């Protein structure tokens, strides 16, 4: 700390001790204090001023009773707030490896968890919400053979096939109708074909 800074520091400390500082001076003091070695007692001048102030305090002065009562009431509020602030908070962190819940307690929780999982699965499986909007999963059906294929299969498999050709009829407009009919007595199955 150079001599000029030291002088300014003393100026500010004296003013603070005697009359107080303006906000600008207070900022300046805080800035200067940063450069001061820790061994310097910055309160010594305030303590000197406090001692001088006490030199004029009569020993007989006493606090008025009503003021004392008011301060004691404030003390109740202050210490209640302090006690509240200092009371240990409920801790949620448990020491690793230690558990305050016995094994029976854990068993109960495990059973409850399993029941919840079962309930959730059951609800999922039986849910009805939006089911109407959900398309059913298409089930692949065996491809039905065409009538022509079925006719061919019947002709190939039935031993007693009766076959007849349609003859020209006498209905006006359908004289050119042609085709045939096959029938199996044992399979009770037959097919008709029309052309024209």
């Amino acid at each position, binding site marked *: 700390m150079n001599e000029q800074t030291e002088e300014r520091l003393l100026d500010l*400390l004296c003013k603070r001790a*005697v009359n107080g500082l303006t906000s600008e001076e207070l900022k300046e003091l805080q800035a200067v204090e940063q450069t001061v070695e820790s061994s310097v007692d910055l309160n010594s001048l305030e303590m000197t001023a406090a*001692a001088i102030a006490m030199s004029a305090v*009569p020993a*007989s002065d*006493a606090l008025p009773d009503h003021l004392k009562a008011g301060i004691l009431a404030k003390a109740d509020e202050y210490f209640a707030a302090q006690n509240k602030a200092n009371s240990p908070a409920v801790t949620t962190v448990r020491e690793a490896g230690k558990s305050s819940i016995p094994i029976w307690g854990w068993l109960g929780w495990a059973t409850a968890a399993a029941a919840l999982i079962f309930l959730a699965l059951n609800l999922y499986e039986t849910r009805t919400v939006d089911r109407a909007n959900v398309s059913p999963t298409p089930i692949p059906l065996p491809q039905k053979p065409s009538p022509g294929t079925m006719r061919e299969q019947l002709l190939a498999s039935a031993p007693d096939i009766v076959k007849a050709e349609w003859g020209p009829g006498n209905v006006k407009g359908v004289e050119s109708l042609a085709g045939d009919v096959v029938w199996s007595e044992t399979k009770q199955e037959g097919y008709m074909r029309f052309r024209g």
Partner: protein
Amino acid sequence: MTQAILQRIADGDQNAVQDCLKAYGGLVWSLARRMLRNNEEAEDAVQEIFIEVWKNASRFDPVLASEATFVAMIARRRLIDKIRFSQRRISADSLEDILAEPAGSSEKEMQVLVEGREAFKALSELRPEQRQVLQLSIVHGLSHQEIADATGMPLGTVKTHARRGLLQAREILGYGKDISIKEVAV
């Protein structure tokens, strides 16, 4: 045992508040009335000061000062703030009363608090002008300008007396000797 009061308060012992008020209530009340010169403002200030004392109780160091000096220091900080905030102006009548007070006598010394007697002796070792400026500013809370107006001293002279007197009183009382004093005789 008065030295233990602030430590007990710092430890959360509310019963120590009664002892604190008994030991320092009169001191704080007297400082507030002298500096503020208004009983209503002084009462408010005293309540605030004691709350401040409880908050700062853990910072008290018996090696640096007595409990009474520590309490008085906190009280003065709060009172100075109040004076600056209120822009208080002291009346001419009050000034006359203050200036008429005897500067110091052995009889007066016997009437003050035990803690103030050493400071009283220290003040008596200062030059009369320095003593007067310090008493007007520190005991009665007058600004340097108010002192200059009341005594007729130039403002710069008032400031010089305040600074030199305070530094010399600090040396006599034995508070903090780490900052060197470079003063020349007037």
